């Protein structure tokens, strides 16, 4: 098995719900707590396994906002595991999930240096590295209903922008989505072979503008006046 995520950049609305539900599940899960530093202070910070950034692609008027969630890619060539001197970091053979044994980690940060995707964060409180577990304490839990045996972020996403499945199975939902929507990997040139795939935004028909009436002189003057006068 090669478990991983597909993230649909076409429908992600950038609400950060996946990150919040990830934090909620994992802070009380096997790798928790995900410590917060000064949660009520001026500069609240803390450990997160999932972070969403927002980008502008292209130049106005042909621009688009892209909301970009990122968590561990569970790479096939996981250098973070290779560089770990203690053996705390490991990649499971049965499903490809990259995990950290909290009892073995010495907090040298070396694995985070080897990760190009910023997936690993040191918990300064406990002194050990933490990362996305693909909710390993959830996806195999037979006490949960089958539909709930998915990572917390996937279930939470209100836009259905996240999909979880087995990339080794060509007929799984994630393999089909990747095939049909030209899913791609991030920074493939580094050779980490990340498992997670990103679906690019669908092509949209441009809104025709040739039938828009030209501005009259008077409306141009009004517009200029409105801009020039400070309110």
């Amino acid at each position, binding site marked *: 098995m090669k478990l991983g995520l597909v993230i649909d950049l076409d429908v992600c609305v950038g609400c950060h719900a996946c990150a919040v539900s990830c934090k909620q599940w994992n802070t009380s899960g096997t790798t928790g707590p995900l410590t917060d530093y000064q949660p009520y202070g001026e*500069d609240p910070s803390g450990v997160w396994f999932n972070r969403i950034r927002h980008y502008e*692609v292209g130049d106005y008027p042909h621009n688009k906002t892209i909301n970009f969630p990122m968590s561990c890619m569970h790479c096939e060539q996981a*250098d973070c595991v290779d*560089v770990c001197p203690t053996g*705390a970091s490991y990649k499971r053979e049965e499903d490809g999930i990259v995990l950290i044994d909290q009892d073995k980690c010495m907090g040298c940060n070396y694995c985070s240096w080897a990760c190009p995707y910023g997936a690993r964060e040191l918990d300064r409180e406990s002194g050990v590295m933490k990362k996305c577990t693909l909710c390993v304490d959830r996806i195999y839990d037979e006490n949960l209903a089958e539909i709930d045996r998915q990572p917390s972020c996937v279930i939470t996403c209100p836009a259905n922008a996240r999909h979880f499945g087995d990339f080794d199975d060509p007929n799984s939902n994630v393999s089909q989505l990747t095939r049909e929507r030209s899913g791609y990997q991030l920074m493939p040139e580094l050779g980490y072979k990340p498992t997670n795939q990103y679906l690019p935004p669908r092509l949209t028909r441009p809104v025709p503008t040739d039938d828009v009436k030209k501005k009259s002189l008077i409306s141009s003057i009004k517009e200029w006046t409105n801009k020039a006068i400070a309110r």
Partner: protein
Amino acid sequence: MHPALSVIFFTVASGAGYGLFILLALAHLLGLGDVDGKTLLWGGLLSLLLITAGLLSSVGHLANPKNAWRAFFRFKTSWLSREGVFAVLFYPFGFCYLLLAWLSDGAVGALTLVLGGVAVLLALITVFCTGMIYGCLKTIRQWNTSLTPTNYLLLGLASGCVVLVLVLLLTGQQADAMAGLGVALLVLAALAKGVYYFWMRTLSGPTINTATGFTRAQVRLLDAGHTAGTFLTDEFGYQAPLNQLFWMKVGVFVFGFVVPVLGLGAVLAGVGGGWFAGLAVVSVFVGVGAERWLFFAEARHVVNLYHGAQRT
């Protein structure tokens, strides 16, 4: 990359310590200079002190040092683990060699030769491993080059040689041959460092476009998604002002190479006794410290692309 003082001290001190040991043992075993028991004792102790202080400082930057003993068990894949193994393996050989050589007052026997030879080899491998810890990272293009371990080896040997000249002078030995070797090593290290700095200006690699997959248009960060700093921005976001980088680079060449070469030149010319050798030692540590600071400060991790950097 954030230039952590503990790691800078570790690489500078242990590099010089191993360099000092290697040259001391080679000078002794190959008869490159008059190395008697007293020189071996003081030079050897100083090298072990530098190495040990460095290694202890490297443990100091761990967030969870109680698990440090586990770091010896991933020899097969991790350069950090390899460095730890070779560093520890060096101690019995280095210590026994020094003890034996000191007890026989500098006479070279078969056992001394074997122990010393193995210790020199282990010391070289350890410094190489230190360089490879950084050199193997594909995420930091400024480090991902064979010049990285080359520079670690050359700077370790050069700074160790400058220290050895002072030790020889303080123990009343002839230091001319070692001072000559020191000048040669310093010039070589300066050339390698110069090549590295010029090479670094030609780099190209991942950009914000390949990082996000949008390769046919300009990509700009609108919002990083967090108001305060994160582990990622603290660890990888460090950026020094350009003029500081420039003056540090000047400092590397002035204090790291020019002043020590002049100091050793004074030793060769027989001027000023040990004073110029002492000046050279202080200067070379300042220079190599600045070099190590720059090594980190100029390194740009690719994760910065996700925080808005257009290229690394």
